[in-house]
């Protein structure tokens, strides 16, 4: 994975989050914690579902266990893309 792809991934995440939560996430950073996004765990699962469909991957529940920041989540996504 190159840096460019990682930036794109963050954009895909921001766009998906905007669709689900119906508000802007233009300033979201990798260091942003999930709890700061204003999205509950149900909403996060919805976002993950959208990412799965868009990127045609499956993210197993186990790999979500320790996810606390956007970076953690993108790592989980990335590990499935290269898998």
């Amino acid at each position, binding site marked *: 994975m190159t840096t460019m792809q990682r930036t794109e991934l963050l954009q895909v995440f921001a766009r998906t989050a905007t669709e689900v939560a*119906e*508000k802007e996430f233009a300033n979201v950073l990798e260091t942003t914690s999930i*709890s*700061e996004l204003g999205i*509950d765990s149900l*909403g*996060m*699962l919805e976002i993950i579902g959208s990412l799965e469909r868009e990127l045609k991957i499956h993210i197993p*529940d186990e790999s979500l266990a320790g996810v606390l*920041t956007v970076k953690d989540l993108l790592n989980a996504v990335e590990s499935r893309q290269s898998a």
Partner: protein
Amino acid sequence: MMDPKYVAPTLAEAVRQLARLGDAADRGFVFVRPDGTERFVPWSELCERAEHRAADLHARGLKKGDRLAIVVPEPDEFVLSFLGAVMGGIVPVPIYPQLSFKNVESYHDTVTHIANASGASMILTTATTKPYLEPVLPRAASLLGLVTVDELAGDHGTVDVTVDPEDLAFLQFTSGSTSRPKGVVVTHRNLAWNSESFMIHGLKKDSSFDKGVSWLPLFHDMGLIGFVIGPLFTNIPVVFMPTASFVRNPRIWLDKIHQHRGTITYAPNFAYALVSKRVKEKDVASLDLSCLRRTGCGAEPIQAKTLREFAEKLAPAKFDPRSFLPSYGMAEATLAITFVPADSGVRSDTVEKAGLEQGAARPAEGEAPTQDLVNCGHAFPEHEIAIVDEQGNRLADRQVGQIITRGPSVSQGYYLERELSAEAFKAGPGGHTWLYTGDLGYLVAGEVFICGRLKDMIIVRGRNFYPSDLEWAVSELPGVRRGNVVAFSSDVDGDEQLIIAAEGMSAEAEALRAAIAQRIVADFALTPHEVLVVPQGTLPRTSSGKPQRRKTRQMYLDGTLARARSVQGTAGQAEDAGAGA
């Protein structure tokens, strides 16, 4: 007390009866895994595997009546483990698994409390969830050990344990809207009666063709009793899928109904909204949902508008809105209390807002502001429902008061909680013992309409407001999600005043505060005393995602909410006490 007419007297006997029916190709449970593959477990195999688990648990030293905490996320393993305990006369105590994006400390506290309150001697879990439970072991004195489902795989034959109708079948821990979960005592007789009530009298099941489809969590009453226990008592096959699979992709619920020709399904209001919002028109067109004849709705306030939108969205898939089945129930009544008659669909009562604020649900006339309430139906045979005032006297039709119920489905109380039990299960009309539900509502010709929780009711200058109505109005604002808003009251200089707390980002806090205040004024002619915008995860919720209003009020009074607001913007500082899927 007598046994029900049409079902076995105990769950253990019901499972053994099914196993004796012989193996027809589709008689059993289908478990859809997260990757989409399916595992079919016919009745005979279900019984055999459960009997083996019962023997294994006895070989590990558990005896009839001992409590076994079960924390198993996979539906197939959960069902086999739960039934294993039941067949061996052991009392399962289902506990929800640790959720993603949540802090693990509050989870440990909850599990420790439930283990102590139930006196559980063992935790049954899986290899993946084990690390989340090991820290609890030293904190609960009764716990002797932890075992995983893989370790139960051995064949220990069967054990001969007699299970009687009055035996404790399981403990149903319910958090309601308080912070400390209580264990509702559920006997086999309660299960048999309630299963007969909602499967036969409510759903009018037909074992020759009915099939359930459910993604409801199995550690909650609606998923466990509604789709595992009720169907086992009445020989109805069910297709289960993981809750997370539905939330990630709501379409899978409809796909499975279509594919398996499901006839019975059930969900809380929010799930119908999620489908309307997420499922695409082109996907609906490829589905045929004409098979669905019972589409139940319960567990949280039912909004006629949500169900209408769902029906419109699914009309191209031949969804029949008459299949909607609004209902009312709670863990203390085992599960179901009232159902509308089959095929009657959603029927609303339009009442005057002003009258409702004074405790009288008058049918609307003229131009005055109105409110729609959904008819939740009537009590089952051998059961009774009534509305009473604060002194416990029966109220007339259309008078709002506390809903009470009695009958053979109703639990005897909370496990080892004498005082809490005496508050909720006590004498009422006719000298009988009634369950005081704590819900406010009114009756019209025996059919009930639910207004809200008694203890949460907000009274401002003599007008009664139900927090769920206020929260619903606010949650329709852009950028606000269901469950992220809590309405409660507080004493301000001797007057009860409305406070609204909503979760949001600091950058938008000012605009959100103004929008919320405006919405409340516009819809209820009521000015909130204070609107607080706090970071995500600050507001306390139950494991099913319902806001804990009294706990929120406590956090407001002790300054926790104000502090949460002041640290906003500092990532990771706010305690994440939320819940959800």
